[in-house]
């Protein structure tokens, strides 16, 4: 388990909730924090209270994603919390100690294929990267979810987060 996989889990949930914009902030150092904020459908109080329950899902099957994330937070001596309002979107915060960044570029590749915008801020020690995917795509003059665009963004992230 690393931060890039937690990001994948959380952001895929955002996209499945209809988000067209996902903002992700990652920081790795002595402590690691990951915050994912979306403009998706959000959850009502009841759903929110069961979100991390093993086997609970609004998508028909599965229900282990958030359970895994909260278990990982515990394992790494940290905390996982979610704030959400129905119709207003969701913000999920993951804090842990001693966890790696992982391959953020590969996670971003999956997220971009949906066509929604992703704004990513990642910092690992002295290296940092900022990506506004839609703006990046515009400057390239190509659609966001085209392989050429996705690979270009992956390269950009990898170069800056060395």
């Amino acid at each position, binding site marked *: 388990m690393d931060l890039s996989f937690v990001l994948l889990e959380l952001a895929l949930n955002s996209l499945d909730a209809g988000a067209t914009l996902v903002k992700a902030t990652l920081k790795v150092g002595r402590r690691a924090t990951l915050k994912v904020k979306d403009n998706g459908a959000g959850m009502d109080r009841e759903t929110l209270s069961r979100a991390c329950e093993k086997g609970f899902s609004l*998508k028909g099957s599965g229900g282990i994603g958030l359970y895994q994330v909260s278990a990982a937070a515990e394992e790494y001596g940290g905390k996982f919390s979610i704030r959400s309002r129905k119709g207003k979107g969701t913000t999920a915060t993951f804090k842990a100690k001693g966890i790696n960044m992982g391959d953020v570029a590969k996670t971003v590749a999956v997220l971009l294929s949906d066509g929604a915008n992703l704004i990513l801020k990642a910092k690992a020690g002295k290296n940092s990267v900022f990506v506004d995917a839609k703006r990046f795509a515009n400057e390239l003059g190509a659609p966001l979810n085209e*392989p050429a665009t*996705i690979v270009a963004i992956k390269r950009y992230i990898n170069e800056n987060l060395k």
Partner: protein
Amino acid sequence: MKKSIADIMAIRESMQSQIILRDNVDAEKEIHIIVGMGTCGINAGAREVFNALVDYVEEHELKGVRVTRTGCLGDCDDEPMIEVHVPGKEKEIYKKVTAEQAVEIIKKLAK
């Protein structure tokens, strides 16, 4: 402002990036590969399979191939799973796919 042939080519170059945004009505004519990206899939390596496919398409500049993701595609034991849709043909489902196997599949299709 009479144009030469070179002028017409230049206009075409510069305008193409504008117009390409409007060309998605041919979506149905593409080969479509869907990678199952439920939590089981991710645990089994679906993210790597997805990236291998996208990287291959970009490297070989394949046209008419689209790679997307969906949720859980089936039994956790069968993951990673991919669905391959070729226009005019029945869809094909591949189970327990590795990144290398996925690349082989797309290589055969691109012929």
